[in-house]
């Protein structure tokens, strides 16, 4: 099969846009050219024609085919690549269409497998119908590889976002990264305000809260717009053993997440969402490259109970009864945060005494009691629960994350103890899976639990993994025997499950 012919001009235009900055530099850098608009236009047209030629060759030399058990892609203009992806190994199938692609009726389709760091197959671009066909065909073939008798079930809608939830998402989903961007702009605005006050302390006292409020408001508006653009018309459905999602206002995304490839479930609620009784659900598979966290969000925001119901429909974990770390862990945080607070107080004092700036440094003393409160809150939100098939971990105050890890998905398990933890007989257990967000600091872990409990937990997780593997294997064996008895040939189940 070939790509959609419209992809030739589209890709050419894309590469021109991508090279636009080179053109800008070129034009600005050589005023001698002087031609102004006409010369720029000339350059653009020449570039477009060259790109068009290249993309035409690319189009002619790009061929893909979906067979019964592989997706074959032969591509490359100068260096050729022949790639075969076994369908059983495909993790996620994602379709995305931005405004222009929608106007042309084309779509980009991406395939993820567990191997490799980038997207394994990307078809840019095929017609939207073809993308849809590929997605459902891949789903059907994957099912077929397991069980032929299973009928294609109709899509069952699990969740669709209401406009109330969507507008809440803007408020709840304040992106802290944006906060820092907005904060950078502050020094530009602040001095002009502060100059109107004679006393610098008074000036600060007035401008600081104003500025803070301004930062939060601007950030909320921006992240609200981003959230609405990203999750407009969000819809989650289930067909057989796949989750299907759709979202986006300007750029439309739709994709499938095979349930049997799910590694870890995360339920996160930030401070605001917690107060309002909302939460979001994340589904991690091994397919995505680290950093694609955005695309893994299964439910951006919904009622807390609803999120738990949805999570249970994916992984049937029991009612969670969290165990908190011992109280001496909290002492650790009190010491840690108090030290930070004292350093701040100390440097404020030093700045007041040794530099020309004079200000009310003693205001920072208020941080010390705050440190105690922070320590308590950190401790309060920690927890772990050992269930028969899952280990559930909880951490974080600003964004509380509950991670549900099936023992079956555990890759390695370790317990670690820093010098300071050893003094208080505490240890941290880290449960590593093939889920892709592991590279960030949010690894599933039980922080600061009793050291003997940590050792026990480490061995328990490792033992339960063996148990679960044995269990699954005997189940598969039984299914296999049954299928032999009933005289039905079944393809061997693939290894990456």
């Amino acid at each position, binding site marked *: 099969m070939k790509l959609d012919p419209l992809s030739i001009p589209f890709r050419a235009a894309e590469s021109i846009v991508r090279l636009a900055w080179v053109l800008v530099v070129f034009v600005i850098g050589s005023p001698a050219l002087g031609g102004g608009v006409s010369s720029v236009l000339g350059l653009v047209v020449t570039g477009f024609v060259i790109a068009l030629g290249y993309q035409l060759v690319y189009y002619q030399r790009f061929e893909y085919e979906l067979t019964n058990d592989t997706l074959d892609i032969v591509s490359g203009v100068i260096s050729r690549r022949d790639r075969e992806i076994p369908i059983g190994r495909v993790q996620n199938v994602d379709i995305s269409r931005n405004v222009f692609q929608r106007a042309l009726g084309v779509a980009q389709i991406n395939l993820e497998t567990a191997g490799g760091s980038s997207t394994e197959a990307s078809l840019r671009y095929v017609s939207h119908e073809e993308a849809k066909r590929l997605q459902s065909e891949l789903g059907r073939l994957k099912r077929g590889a397991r069980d032929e008798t299973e009928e294609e079930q109709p899509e069952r809608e699990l969740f669709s976002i209401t406009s109330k939830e969507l507008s809440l998402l803007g408020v709840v989903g304040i992106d802290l990264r944006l906060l820092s961007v907005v904060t950078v702009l502050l020094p530009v605005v602040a001095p002009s305000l502060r100059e109107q006050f004679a006393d610098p302390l008074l000036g600060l006292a007035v401008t600081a809260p104003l500025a803070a409020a301004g930062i939060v408001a601007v950030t909320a508006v921006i992240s609200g717009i981003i959230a609405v653009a990203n999750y407009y018309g969000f819809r989650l459905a289930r067909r057989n053993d796949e989750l299907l999602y759709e979202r986006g206002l300007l750029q439309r995304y739709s994709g499938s997440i095979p349930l049997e490839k799910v590694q870890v479930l995360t339920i996160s609620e930030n401070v605001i969402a917690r107060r309002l009784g909302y939460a979001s659900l994340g589904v991690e598979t091994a397919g995505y490259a680290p950093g694609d966290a955005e695309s893994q969000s299964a439910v951006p925001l919904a009622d807390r109970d609803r999120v738990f119901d949805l999570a249970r429909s994916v992984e049937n974990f029991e009612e969670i009864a969290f165990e908190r770390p011992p109280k001496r862990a909290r002492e650790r945080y009190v010491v840690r945060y108090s030290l930070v607070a004292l350093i701040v107080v100390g440097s404020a004092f030093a700045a007041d005494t040794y530099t020309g700036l004079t200000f009310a440094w003693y205001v920072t003393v208020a941080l010390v009691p705050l440190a105690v409160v922070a320590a308590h809150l950190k401790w309060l939100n920690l927890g772990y629960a050992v269930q028969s098939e899952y280990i559930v971990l909880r951490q974080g105050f600003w964004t509380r994350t509950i991670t549900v890890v099936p023992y079956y998905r555990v890759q390695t398990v370790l317990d670690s103890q820093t010098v300071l933890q050893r003094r208080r007989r505490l240890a941290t257990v880290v449960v590593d899976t093939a889920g892709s967000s592991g590279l960030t600091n949010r690894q599933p872990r039980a922080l600061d639990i009793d050291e003997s409990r940590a050792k026990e937990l480490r061995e328990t997780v490792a033992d339960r993994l063996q148990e679960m593997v044995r269990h699954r294997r005997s189940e598969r064996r039984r299914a296999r025997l049954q299928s032999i008895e009933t005289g039905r040939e079944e393809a*061997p189940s693939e290894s990456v499950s």
Partner: protein
Amino acid sequence: MDERDGDRMRERPFGEDLTPAIRRTDAENRSDASVADIDELIGPPQTLESEIQGVWAIQSAVSAAILGVIAAVAFSVLSVGGPWVGGVLFVVGTIVGIALTILRYRIWTYQVRSDSLYLRRGVVTRVNTVAPYIRIQHVDTRRGPVERVFGLATTVVYTAGSRGADVSIPGLTPERAADLQARLKQLAIAAEGEDAV
């Protein structure tokens, strides 16, 4: 199709021409033979070769030297101190590095257990890792230039986990490393790495 499979099974129950799915059906029978093997493969906790201390000491001396040079340059520009600060840093860094090296060597142990590889390491942060054999993707043996000088090798166990090559055992003689690699390979096969992800 299944009729023929059935015949084949009767003739040669564990024949090599059977499809993997059918072989798995008799995994229990088959593993009878490998159980004895597994007992031979596993062992008590092992320590590293003492030469590894040389490798680590050199590595820490090199980083101390880099730190020293940076400090020397920085302090010769600044008004306080002088290039001698770099020298002091180098000496102190090397001494601390050697002390840590000795402790690190004493703590480092690994054990080939019946269903997982167990590592214990770390001076400042003590880490105990359990890597189940069913999760092993592949096993490498690596020899860096300094390691080669000391006649040592490192065995690295890869899992699909996000921690990458977190499971590596340094300070083995090449023979020991090759032996460990072979043993882990056999254990991984015995554990049937069907469920790697």
